[in-house]
């Protein structure tokens, strides 16, 4: 019996070694690509024609869609920030998703809105709309009051009402940079191949001070949990997504702020309800649609920080959020399993989706099992103390390395954290996250995997806690 146990423990140790070796090689490759792309982007910014596109009549109009459910505290600020962006022609559509607090009243009072009668063409089949509100003096603002049905359905409702060829989904707790829309549209304007979706970097608003709708002072959050997320977001957005973008294999764009070609989304039937991560699901479905029809297309990501969003600052809410994200990933992979290892879908089918399946889905489970097996192997005398220490040190430093590069990439972008103490704190947290944050995240994600296997389809609501709201973005690793 002991021999069999030893045999399995040894086998698993080798498996974990190869698994992490492969994963880290992949991360390093992504990192190298992202570094090159961002350095080039920094040089290109000098001659980018943002200003010209901002004045051009050729710049297509955009509908900014803001779904809101019980967002009384932040919704007016978010709408003001959306209305203040520099963009030639845009409209802001707020979808009140059956809020039971004073969300609707706050918006109606703040913007002097009146009920108007519009026809609702149920293009994407959504839950019923109760009323529309607008103010002739703010002609580019429309508020839709509808029955509670979730974010996907609310976005579909906004798409139905929108009158622009592009729409941009924005979370109710997110604040936009003034030039965010023009930066997002630039790859679309300049590309010869249709760009059907484009996303940008989402940064953490905890600790940041806003004066009205504009950013006043960039600071780091005081609490540890949001600090870990600052480092995590830097890593995820600046080398994860940039790397995937360079490989033209992006599978996730942040629900907090991403731009879509409306006709493309209508072609695939809009957002799909019943998934907890509609932002990833829609992107995968867009890939599927275009690849099956062999139509040229691009899904882009830009490295400029364009949107600020609040993140949970307590373990309960963060845990709910992470379980929900992981459940969303599992649901998306499950719904589109026919694409995995399917050559018809090119690099998405043969490369991106298998990566998400093997490294993102099973990574946390293997990591937790790895901790147990390594401990058992050590107790059984299969692993020398030297080996154990060396493995642990390697694992910690590699994690620190990835996050330090994320911090370095943040330094290259504009709107960096200005103080010396910011840099030091970020590097310190890059090291610290390996001792607590990483493990607890793996635990939540493993929980989500078991919930998924047990047939859970619903999602845990992340409710207001203190001054922070959760971000509807999914920084799946890396």
């Amino acid at each position, binding site marked *: 019996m002991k021999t069999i146990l030893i045999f399995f423990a040894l086998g698993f140790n080798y498996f974990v070694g190869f698994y992490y070796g492969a994963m880290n090689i992949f991360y390093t490759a992504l990192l190298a690509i992202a570094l090159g792309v961002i350095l*080039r982007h920094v*040089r*290109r910014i*000098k*001659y980018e*024609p943002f200003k*010209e*596109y901002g004045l*051009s*009549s*050729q*710049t297509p109009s955009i509908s900014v869609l803001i779904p809101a459910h019980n967002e009384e505290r932040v919704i007016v600020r978010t709408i003001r920030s959306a209305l203040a962006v520099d963009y030639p022609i845009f409209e802001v559509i707020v979808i009140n998703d059956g809020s039971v607090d004073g969300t609707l009243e706050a918006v109606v009072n703040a913007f002097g809105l*009146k*009920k*108007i*009668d*519009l*026809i609702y*063409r149920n293009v994407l089949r959504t839950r019923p709309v109760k009323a529309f509100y607008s103010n*002739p003096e703010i002609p580019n603002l429309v508020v839709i009051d509808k029955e509670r049905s979730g974010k996907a359905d609310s976005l579909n409702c906004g798409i139905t009402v929108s009158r622009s060829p592009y729409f941009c989904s924005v979370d109710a707790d997110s604040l936009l940079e003034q030039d965010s829309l023009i930066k997002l549209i630039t790859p679309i*304007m*300049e*590309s*010869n191949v249709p760009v059907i979706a484009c996303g940008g970097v989402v940064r953490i608003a905890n600790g940041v001070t806003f004066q009205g709708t504009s950013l006043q002072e960039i600071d780091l959050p005081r609490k540890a949990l949001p600090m870990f997320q600052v480092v995590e977001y830097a890593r995820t957005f600046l080398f994860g997504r940039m790397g995937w973008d360079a490989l033209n294999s992006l599978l996730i764009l942040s629900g907090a702020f991403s731009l879509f070609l409306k006709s493309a989304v209508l072609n695939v039937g809009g957002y799909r309800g019943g998934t907890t991560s509609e932002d990833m699901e829609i992107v995968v479905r867009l890939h599927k649609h275009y690849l099956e029809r062999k139509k040229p297309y691009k899904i882009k990501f830009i490295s400029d920080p364009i949107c600020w969003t609040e993140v949970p600052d307590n373990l309960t809410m963060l845990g709910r959020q992470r379980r929900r994200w992981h459940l969303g990933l599992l649901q998306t992979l499950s719904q589109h399993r026919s694409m995995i290892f399917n050559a018809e879908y090119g690099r998405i089918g043969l490369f991106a989706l298998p990566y998400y399946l093997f490294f993102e889905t099973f990574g946390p489970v293997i990591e937790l099992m790895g901790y147990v097996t390594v401990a058992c192997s050590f107790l059984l005398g299969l692993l*020398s103390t*030297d*080996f154990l220490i*060396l*493995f642990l*040190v*390697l694992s910690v*430093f*590699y994690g*620190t*390395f990835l996050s*330090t*590069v994320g*911090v*370095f990439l943040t*330094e*290259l972008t504009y709107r960096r954290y200005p103080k*010396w103490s910011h*840099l030091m704190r970020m*590097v310190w947290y890059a090291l610290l996250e390996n001792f607590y944050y990483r493990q607890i995240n793996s635990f939540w994600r493993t929980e989500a995997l078991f919930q998924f296997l047990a047939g859970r389809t619903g999602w845990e609501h992340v409710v207001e806690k203190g001054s922070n709201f959760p971000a509807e973005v999914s920084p799946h690793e890396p």
Partner: protein
Amino acid sequence: MITDFYKQILAALIVCIIILILAFFLAAVTRRVLNARKYAELDRYRKWCRLKITTALQSGSSLSIVEDLRAQPLSLQWHAVEEILFDLIEQRKYRKEVRQLFYRLGYRDHYEKKLKSNRVTTKAAAVDKVGKMLSEFSTGKLIEVLNSENNPEILTVTIRALCRNNYREGLKAILERLPDLYGKNLISQKTIETSLVHCSADAIPLLVAYGRKYGNPKITASLLEVLSRLPANPMALYYAGANLGAYDAEVRARAIKVLGRREASEGVLHPALLLPLLEDRVWFVRLQAANALGTLRYERAVDKLGALLLDQNWQVRNAAARALTHIGDASLDVFLNILKYTDRYAKGSICEELERTNFTRILIENLTSSDKRTHEKSREILRIMHSLNFSTPIYDYLNSGKNNGIKHEMASLILETAVHSAGV
């Protein structure tokens, strides 16, 4: 032995990773230190340069400061002077002197040399700067880049630079290369159109001449788009008129855009030319035609626009309704007919546009009209709108309106609707 070997490999990996962590950390620190020092000094230079240059420009002695401003290429003073000069060249009154300063201080030569660089970002940045210097003498160099390049990024910046300069030769070179750029898909249509819009009205004859020269629909569509953004000109209007019957729908739609502007209505072509396009087989052509005739307020289009209120495409229906509201009281009959006799969906579209365009305000004001027919038609439209639940403007007026006569009329039409509904 083997175990030791593995341990050594692991230890070596750890050392490498620690070195990399330190390297990235030090890179971040060094970057901060250098940038802090650089920008502090740059700010100082900027302040000094701005004062010196603006004083000299205001006193008309700009060339006297050349020696004071001269600096080593790419030094901080060089960058500061460059920034200030780029800022000042935007002001038309200083343009000539600033161009001279750019030349005398060696900026033009410096960046023209960089145009030969093999590095994409260096070359594109140099093209951008040469373009911003607005020098006629650099146009030839930029044309050389345009004709020899195939890199989309450099081409985009070059075309923008040439258009910004607005010299005839530059525009001619772009138009000459256009078939090749579009044929090889080297640049997006939107980029070309956004850049060409910088041309002045003087460019219109050249744009039209090249449009006639090429039969390529993509080029024609782009040039028409640009013409629709430039001031109305008889040559452009005739060119657009000639393209109203083009085979390509995009060309037809953009030709309508050229003709469908208010300032074009006093031009040489009659809006009646657009009427057949309201029956075009392609929806966005019909939509453009409806928009144009609405903008031109062409009353003779009312019946055909009325027919479009039942179009299969909702965007066309909305555009037609919007166009009719622009035309005003002459549309009342059409609205009334459609609201009386057609399906609920089309009625809804009309009511929606009547509210969105604030035409309901005109209808409400018409309730005090001395013209009995206008009064009755407006009242009937409001009554039908109310029966279709488009009642918000009526209730708003009842709540906050000032004219008691109108309020009385509204109250009675609400009552009528209620009686009618009860009767049904």
